[in-house]
Structures are given as C-alpha cells and as structure tokens.
C-alpha cells in the first residue's frame, strides 16, 4: 500500500493552523499556571502554614518576572558552552557518532536492493537510525547533566554566582541543541551521501557486443520477453540488462513513427532514424524499463546495428514531488445524491470513501467522486502542456470480475461555472483506464482535452478545449472519477488523487526531513532538562522515554482506550479477562456494570488527556514523505518548529519553577 497514512495534514495551511494553535497554547499555559500556583500554595501551606505559604508563592511569582526578563544571553551561552564541553569531553558525542558510522559502514550489507523500492529502504534506514540515535543522545546527555551537577555539588559554584534559574535551564537546552545540531548536520550529510552513493549503479546489456546485436527478435506469436512478460506493442527487439544491485531491467527497442513537426525526442535514446516514403520519420528508440522505482538513461554511440549502448547511473529514485491536491472531494451515491464519506464498505471506509460501479439490477448508477481543484493555474505547473496526474485507487470487489484485467475506472474533467444557470459548461470526454489497485498510477493529462461545450439550453458543441483557459478559466475545475465495472467499488481519499505540480530538489527535501528530526530533538531535550531539575537521572530518562513513546503512539493509545471498542475500556477489559467473558457479548445490565462502564469513561478521559501532554511526534516526522518522494511543505516545517518552540517554552518554564523552588543543597 503506497498511500501515506496521515497525509491529511498536507492540506493544512500555516496561516489556518496558527490562530487555533496559539489559542490552545495560551489556554494550556493558563490552565497549567493555575494548577501550578494552586499546587505550590498547597505544598507551601503544608510546610509553613497558609499565611507564610501565600507569601512564599507570591514571592516566587514576583521574583520570576525579573528572572524571565533579566535573563542574560551571555550567561545562557556560558552555560551552553559548558554543556557542549561536557558532552564532548564525556565522549557521548563520539559514541553516538561511532554507532552511526558503524551502522552506515555495515548497514549497506543488510539492505536488499532487489526490493520494490530500495530508495525507501535506504531513506527509512538513515532517517530512522538518525532519529533514534539523536533522540537517545539528547535524552542521555540532558538527563544526566543537571542531576550529576546536583549530585557532585558542582551546581553550588554556579548558583552562587548571579545566575538565574532560567539561564541554567535554557543554557543547558541551548548547549545540548548546539551539539545535537552539529551532530545531526554531519549525520544528515553522511546519510545523504550514503543514500545517493548506495543506490548509484549501472548495468550492461546482456550479450557480447553491447549493441543492437545483443538484443533478441520478438516471437510474433507470443510477443513475450525473456521474463515471460508481454512486450509493448511497438517493440521490435528486446533484451535484458545484467543483474546488478539485486535486479535487472528489460530493454526494448521500440519503433516510433512520428510526423516531422512533432516534438523532438531525447537524442540519447535514438538508435536509428529513417525517413519513410510518406515523409514521416521512423525512430528506433531503446527503452530501459522501470524496475524498483528507477530506470537508466542510455547513451548511444554510433548508428544502426553498430550503435553501442552505455547505461547511465540510476535515475528516478530521488523525487520530491509537489502535489496539487483537490480543495474538496465530494461523493455521490448511485442515485446521484451527495453522500458524505462515500459508500461504507467496512473498516477501509475510515480511510477512503467508496463509489460503486452499478449492479445488475441498477446498471445506470450515478455514483461518482468529484475532486474540486481551485487555483488551477498553468503558472503553478512546471510543465503545463502535459500534466501529470497521480492516482492511488482502492478497490473493493464484490465479485471476482474479469480475471484478465483489473477493475476499470473512468475520469472526466468538468468546468465549475460561477453561475451555472447562465454560464456554459465544458465537459471533457471520458477516459477509461484500468486501475492499479492500491498502487500509484501515473497518467499523463494533455492540456488540450477533447470534449463538449454545453450552453445553458443544453446545446453541445464538440471540440478541443484548453484545460486552463477554457475549463478552469475561473481557476476551478473538477475531476470526476467513476467506477466502470458493475458490482465493484472504487475507493479514494483526498490525498489519493493529485496533480504533480513540480519537482523540487531532493537534497533540499532531505534537509527539511532532518529539520523535523531537529524539532523532535528540541522537544526531547527540553523535556529531559525540565524533568532533570527535580528528578534523578534514571527517573528522568524513564520519564522522557515514556513521553516519547506516548508521543509516537498518541493516536494509537487514544484509539486503544476508547470504551466503545470491543471489550470496553481498561476496567471492563480486565473484568472480562478475569471472568473469561467473550468481548463481543454485552455485559448484563446492572448497577455494577454501569459503575464499571462509567469508571472506564472517567479513566479513559483522564488517560486521554494525559496523552496530550506528550508531543505528537507524527506531525514532526517527515521521513515518510521523504521516502515516498513527496516534497515536504515549508508550512509543515514552520508548524513543526513552532510546536517544538512551544514545548521548549513550556518545559523551560516548568524547569525554571522547579529549580527556583527547590533547595539545591541537602
């Protein structure tokens, strides 16, 4: 399955996200401040009585204001420098880098290049490895530093200088981030080189001559290549590359007859060129088929049978596609009525909405899915003449269907008039195609579409119309997808169908993915430093790791704890385990059952709210987008950085008050 889970946040705009996020942040700050003051007052009252307790709390708050505003960058940097030296001289950085270097040195041995997408394996390996090592290093250095200082009493010589608690906390975070950033930059650069070099390879053509003579004639009866696969209709010869890096590519020499005024081809691929008696040109082009997500360019020296082939380095692994998603996706059922979320075909419907292809009883289904694109402007595309549409369609079969082919679908463009009662409407001809069923299929969409212009009276005029100037003259166009096979269903979500706007630099995308890891590191270091102000090093490590684990799985944990799940919430589940009750059977209605269920609801609410304290690392993790070849949006980077900043500020404040209100000496 190549769809990206959670890609929905790709639709989020920074400007839309920010006001809500600031609101939640301020509300959280207010709530936690009130809780903190109340808790502080309780402790102070217990120790000193209510009067003195109130004075202590007021004094602490009063002193915090000059402490926050009087924080000296020079002192912060002094503490930061100390943290850097500490990390270096205690060899934590060297050990982390050593483990990473070892992983890179020997990791390549265990990565199977023959997989469907070795680029994804490589990228996931380096990004996951870097992420784990950096986070682990962050947790370790940040958890030990302050407790060690307190244990060894070195903190005495620091806090007896005019150093504010803010400076101790922020300085440490800054120091560990400096060391972490340097290490991350080195690891990122090495990872990039590892991926690029690890996947670089070339092949030779099987045969002695490396020329057309190495290719085989095609048996006209079967038209199969050596792998038993059908060759393309225009192939005149076929061959195979050598087996390198765990795979080989089929090669085809295809015949391509073109008008003289047609667009020029890549001259590297043309083996021979011949002018036919009718004036057209017959090209023989050598095509290396795509295998494992890449192909190779062919350099041809010479002409005709003597032409020698040289395959270039691998091409197509490293993509950073910029998708243009639809602004809206609307489903219509078989009666043509709008149906939110499409047809429900079971659990899969949580991800995708489904449309039906009709049934034997109702052959003329009106079910379809309409993707509404806005700001559909030629200027947004790198190549507006020939658009690239990428689709990942899910299929739900209610019958086996035609065994010879996959489920059929159709697509059709339609304009969205501003005033449907007056304006004419452009409708393109239907394009029927076989779906790839859960695999990305890439379709070329020419700018000029044949279709009809239908006026308000229903009169149609056929012709060729421009997708941008005619269909999307007002910037809006819709793509209608229908299922063309009876008794079958097609599923799709908003992220499944998009135009490829442009291709960005892969190196830049790699950098952005590592910015995500950097943001995670900032959160982890902030948490560890804050916790280390009142916990010992081992407990700090455990606490931080627990928060990280919750952060990575917060959604899963929330789902798992839902009392609506089979078997109920935690207490009910435990009760069922002890009494060996089937989780699908309802418990007998009684006071005890009600009590049990209500306790579960309360417990789940409390536990669920706890998961929100942990950062949602999935929104900061861009490695999946990187490995799948999608350009990481700058908006997402800003969001990640602001989330990290929010946690840094929050946990720094917690660290400050914790350090300020504790006795450093024993």
């Amino acid at each position, binding site marked *: 399955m190549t769809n990206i889970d959670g890609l929905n946040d790709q639709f989020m705009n920074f400007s839309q996200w920010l006001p809500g996020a600031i609101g939640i942040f301020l509300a959280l700050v207010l709530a936690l401040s009130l809780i903190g003051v109340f808790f502080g007052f309780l402790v102070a009252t217990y120790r000193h009585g209510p009067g003195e307790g109130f004075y202590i709390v007021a004094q602490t708050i009063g*002193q915090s204001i000059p402490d926050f505003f009087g924080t000296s960058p020079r*002192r912060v940097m002094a503490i930061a420098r100390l943290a850097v030296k500490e990390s270096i*001289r205690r060899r934590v950085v060297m050990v982390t880098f050593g483990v990473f270097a070892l992983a890179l040195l020997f990791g390549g041995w265990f990565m199977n290049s023959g997989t469907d997408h070795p680029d994804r394996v490589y990228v996931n390996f380096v990004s996951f490895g870097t992420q784990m090592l950096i986070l682990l290093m962050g947790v370790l250095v940040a958890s030990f530093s302050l407790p060690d200082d307190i244990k060894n009493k070195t903190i*005495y010589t620091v806090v007896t*200088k*005019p150093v504010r608690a803010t400076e101790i906390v922020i300085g440490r975070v800054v120091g560990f981030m400096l060391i972490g950033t340097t290490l991350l930059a080195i690891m990122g650069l090495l990872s990039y080189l590892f991926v690029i070099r690890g996947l670089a390879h070339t092949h030779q053509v099987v045969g002695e001559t490396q020329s057309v003579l190495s290719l085989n004639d095609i048996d006209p009866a079967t038209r199969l290549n050596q792998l038993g696969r059908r060759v393309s209709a225009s192939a005149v010869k076929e061959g195979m590359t050598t087996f390198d890096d765990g795979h080989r590519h089929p090669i085809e020499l295809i015949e391509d007859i073109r008008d003289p005024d047609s667009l020029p081809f890549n001259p590297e691929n043309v083996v021979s060129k011949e002018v036919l008696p009718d004036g057209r040109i017959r090209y023989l082009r050598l095509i290396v088929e795509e295998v494992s997500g890449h192909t190779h360019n062919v350099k041809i020296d010479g002409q005709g049978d003597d032409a020698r082939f040289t395959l270039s380095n691998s091409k197509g692994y490293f993509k950073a596609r910029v998708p243009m998603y639809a602004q809206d996706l609307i489903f219509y059922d078989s009666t043509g009525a709008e149906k939110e979320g499409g047809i429900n075909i079971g659990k899969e419907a949580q991800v995708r909405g489904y449309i039906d292809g009709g049934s034997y009883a109702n052959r003329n289904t009106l079910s379809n899915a309409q993707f509404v694109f806005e700001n559909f402007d030629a200027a947004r595309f790198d190549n507006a003449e020939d658009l690239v549409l990428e689709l990942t369609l899910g299929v739900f079969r209610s019958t086996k269907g035609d065994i010879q082919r996959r489920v059929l679908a159709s697509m059709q463009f339609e304009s969205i008039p501003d005033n449907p009662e007056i304006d004419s409407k452009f409708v393109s001809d239907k394009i029927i195609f076989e779906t790839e069923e859960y695999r990305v299929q890439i379709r070329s969409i020419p700018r000029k579409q044949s279709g009809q212009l239908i006026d308000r009276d229903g009169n149609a005029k056929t012709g060729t119309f421009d997708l941008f100037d005619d269909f999307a003259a007002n910037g809006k166009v819709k793509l209608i997808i229908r299922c063309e096979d009876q008794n079958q269903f097609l599923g799709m979500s908003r992220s499944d169908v998009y135009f490829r706007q442009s291709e960005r630099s892969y190196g830049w995308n790699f950098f952005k993915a590592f910015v995500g890891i950097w943001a995670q590191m900032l959160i982890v270091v902030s948490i560890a430093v804050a916790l280390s102000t009142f916990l010992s090093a081992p407990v700090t490590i455990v606490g931080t790791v627990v928060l990280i684990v919750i952060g990575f799985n917060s959604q899963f944990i929330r789902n798992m704890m839902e009392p609506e799940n089979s078997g109920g919430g935690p207490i009910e589940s435990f009760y069922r385990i002890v009494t060996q009750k089937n989780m699908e059977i309802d418990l007998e209605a009684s006071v005890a059952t009600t009590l049990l269920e209500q306790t579960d609801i309360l417990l789940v609410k409390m536990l669920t709210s706890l998961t929100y304290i942990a950062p949602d690392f999935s929104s900061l993790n861009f490695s999946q987008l990187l490995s799948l070849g999608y350009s990481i949006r700058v908006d997402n980077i800003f969001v990640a950085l602001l989330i990290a900043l929010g946690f840094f500020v929050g946990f720094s404040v917690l660290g400050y008050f914790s350090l300020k209100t504790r006795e450093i000496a024993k």
Partner: protein
Amino acid sequence: MSTAEVKGDEKQTKRLEQSNPDYDPNIVIEAQNLSKVYRDFWGRQKVRALKALDLEVRKGEVFGLLGPNGSGKSTTIKLLLGLLFPTGGRALVFGKDATEVTKNEKIGYLPEESYLYRFLTAEETLDFYGRLFDMPVKVRKERAKELIEKVGLTWAKRRQLREYSKGMVRRIGLAQALINDPDLILLDEPTSGLDPLGTREMKDMIVELKEQGKTVVMCSHLLADVQDVCDRIAILYQGELKELGRVDSLLKVSEETQVRFKNVPESAFDEIRDVIKKHGGDVLSMENPKTTLEELFLTIVRESKGVLAIGQNEPPIKCSR
C-alpha cells in the same frame, strides 16, 4: 574598583536604604532568628540544624563560624547563599534576601570541597565563572591570568582539573571564588584537605583579602586556623549560638600575664621571681618557648623549595608571615 563601579554601588546602597529603612551599609550579613529544620520527603522533621540564630557581620572583618561537626556552620553558610531555604527567620546579605540572585554579584564562595567541573582546564574554569558574571572578554582574561598566577597554577593552567591534586583543585577553587573581585567572601572549611603549606597560603590569602577591605566569613572546626585569621567568631553547638565576640577578647586570660624577653642569663631568673613575689604574684612557669611544628615545617620546605625552584617553572612558595 573603578569610578563607575563605585557610583553603581552608591546607587544600589541608596536604593536599598529607600526600600529597607533598617539597612546599614556597614552590615554585610544579617541573620535574624534564622532557623533550619531538615525534613524528609513527607515533610517529617529529621534534624533541627539551626536554632534561632541572630548574627551580624560587619564590613571589612574576618568572621569565623566555629563549631564541631554538625553544629550548623555549613548550614548557616548555605542559608546565606540561598542554597537552602530557612525554616524560620531571615537571612539578609547586603540588605537583600538571601534567595535573591542579584546579591551574588558581590559574593565569592569557596565550598567545603572545590566542586568544580573536572573536565575543564584551569583557564576554562575561570573563563566559565567569569562569563557567569557577564564580565567582558578582556577583563575576564586578565582577571583569570592574574588569579592563576596568584594561586600558583600557571604551570598547570591547561590541564584538566581531573588531573589536579586535591590541593591544586582547592587553589583553583579559591581563584573561582575571587574571579569577580567580590566584597564578601564565604569560605566553607577553607583549609580542609590542605597540607600545612597550603593551609598557610590560604591563611595568608585571607589576611590579604582583609587588608584589601573585603569581608570574609569562614567556617571551620580547626580552631588554630580560626584563631590565626579571624577578628570575630561565633561558636555554634548543636545549631545554637554559644559564644560571639572578638577573638582577642574571648581568648584573653585576664588574671595571667605573659612576659617574653631574650638575652637574659639564668642567674637573673631568681631576681625576677622575687620581684613578682614582692608584688603578690605567682610564677607559673619560666622556660624557653617552643616554636610550632607548622613553623618548623614551613622553614624546612621554604629552604628546600628555594634551592629547587631555581630554573624550574613552578613558582616558589610565598609566605608573608
């Protein structure tokens, strides 16, 4: 101290006088009914370390806190530094609450053991602490160089402290306490762990600081050290103040008189006894005085060092007394 710094201090004094009418700039430390109870995690009382201590330390004096182990000396110092919070009463330093960070601008502190970062060199250590005082680079570097020379560690300034002996760490500890040219220096067991030579140097340093007009507060259970350098002392026992006053007046034995003379023959001793008897006095002893073991040791080392130091990078020992 520069003119600007003097003006700054004057301003601060005025501010303090306005905010605290009882503030007397001549009183550097003030403990009012100060008490400390150590509690366990659950808030139950474990030890009452200090009981209602009232104390004043005046500007320019060397003040000693004396007492056996567990008498509350270190607790008092920690309360004055804000490392501990008082259970009752107040601790004021330069007229400010001891928990206020800004008071530390004028304080130098040498803990009982030199709790320093062992992975730093001597130069880096002083540079780090200098940065904590927001000192400009030039001043910081000059001050660090000067102090390293003063404590005699120039030859080891680029070595990490983990390679230092205990005495060397103690010396660099003292240097860090003086990095900001403080007005008040708090020394917790300053001679602990030092050899006689180091002890003597430390005492010399304390006297030198007093001569510079600094206020020094030290706590120790080594009575001889306190007696040598302190102007006033407070004796604590089980957290209570037992005695407070000037060393010379506290130690003065009023009913006895000591006369030291030299180049007098033994034949004259009987005459001297007779004179004392004539005036109604009793002769308790009349003998040749003995030098102290410390003096003897220092003389030997000084002489040996004087010979060895020629042509070596290690600085000769400085003994001003």
